[in-house]
């Protein structure tokens, strides 16, 4: 084979790879509480479609500020339903792409086995120093936690014991390190394959708080990326919804 032909072949194969990579990536901003399911979803998504998810995990408010300022995200999986709606109003999204991908479940959790009973009576009994929640001003799970305490008539009694994590990950961290005896976390953080993985927990009935709707939306930057639409389609597929439920979300 001539040398010229060889280099042509090399050039052609380099082109093919480069093009493959470019078309296949989708940049996704994902709410911190959805980290574990997203990793599983990304795996399934890649197997099924060949596209790759490039995910950034973080706080919804921060993502909002970053998207406003030109962040390269193409799909946004929010921790709430207000932020995607806000972005939609501001014309930063692909019209009609907004949908609820998961409904969060709240859990009262302690790292100690047997500490939290399955009715949450431990909240009324007291005897603990710190109750960890996510910041109610910025985190939907934190807001839901305050609604639960309100509904149980315990807001006053527990006010002096509250410690706030900036997000649900930190609320979990305070409890898992034992610094807070118990706390309101996302069930998805302590749940796998249909059961609580460690410690003790009360799965809070959804009647005690407003639904924690987590909405997703395709952003402006993703409007010409086939992989972005494919990811959204995949999130709605029975395969993905079953997986999401296994991580402790309703649908």
């Amino acid at each position, binding site marked *: 084979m001539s040398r010229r032909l060889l280099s042509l072949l090399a050039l052609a194969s380099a082109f093919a790879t480069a093009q493959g990579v470019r078309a296949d990536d989708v940049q996704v901003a994902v709410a911190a509480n959805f980290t574990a399911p997203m990793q599983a979803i990304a795996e399934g998504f890649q197997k099924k479609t060949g596209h790759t998810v490039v995910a950034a995990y973080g*706080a919804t*408010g*921060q993502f*909002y*500020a970053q998207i406003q300022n030109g962040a390269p995200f193409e799909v946004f999986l929010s921790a709430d339903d207000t932020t995607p709606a806000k972005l939609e109003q501001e014309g930063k999204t692909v019209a009609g792409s907004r949908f609820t991908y998961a409904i969060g479940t709240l859990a009262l959790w302690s790292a100690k086995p047997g500490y939290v009973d399955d009715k949450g009576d431990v909240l009324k009994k007291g005897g603990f*120093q*710190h109750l*960890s929640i996510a*910041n109610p*001003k*910025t985190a939907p799970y934190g807001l839901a936690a305050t609604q639960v305490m309100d509904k149980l008539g315990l807001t006053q009694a527990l006010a002096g014991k*509250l*410690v*706030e*994590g*900036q997000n649900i990950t*930190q609320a979990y*961290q*305070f409890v898992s*390190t*034992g*610094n*807070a005896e118990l706390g309101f976390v996302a069930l998805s953080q302590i749940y796998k394959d249909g059961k609580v993985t460690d410690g003790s927990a009360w799965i809070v009935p959804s009647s005690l708080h407003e639904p924690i709707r987590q909405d997703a939306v395709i952003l402006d930057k993703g409007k010409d990326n086939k992989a972005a639409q494919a990811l959204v389609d995949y999130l709605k597929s029975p395969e993905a919804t079953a997986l999401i439920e296994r991580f402790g979300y309703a649908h």
Partner: protein
Amino acid sequence: MPLSAADLTAIRLTLELATLTTLLLLLLGMPLAWWLARTRSRLKGVVGAVVALPLVLPPTVIGFYLLLSMGPNGAIGGLTQALGLGTLPFSFAGLVVGSLVYSLPFVVQPLQNAFEAVGDGPLEAAATLRASPWDRFFSVVLPLARPGVVTAAILGFAHTVGEFGVVLMIGGNIPGKTRVVSVQLFDHVEAMEYAQAHWLAGGMLLFSFLILLALYGRRQHRPRWS
């Protein structure tokens, strides 16, 4: 007034934290810096490196280790519990401990440099005049090292005011106890309250600039010690 009552509480708390931390660091940092400046021990390198660690570690790393070690299952937590003090996270005392670690190099290093610059000469001269070691330190070293002490105090104070990651990790965001300005500012941004965020952020910017101006401006029209 564009600042809310919660903002003002956070500002007051931050100033209290920075003042207390600076005073404690000067008190604890002085003997440490003196030792580092004078010692010929082989440990000097190790201790110097440990003191400098907070300069390069991400504050979240410091905060995370503090959260673990001050917790009920950690070494410091075990000690404070045995002393009947409970655990330190989520308390003002815990923030002070965290700030001591976080701002340590900003106080110790300027002090050490100033002490080293004093040199042996003045100390030996004072010794021949029968000045006691304490007398030598307070009458000779400290006056000569005064610019370094002022620099240490200013940097320690300013750095503590700007503290964020450590407080975030061990504070628990309790108003009046652990919610300092930087956390309050973060809250405003997260809640998309950009107007309030601007007032606090602008205030911090101005404050930091003025402090650094005091630091660098002062150096220009005053001769350095020789």
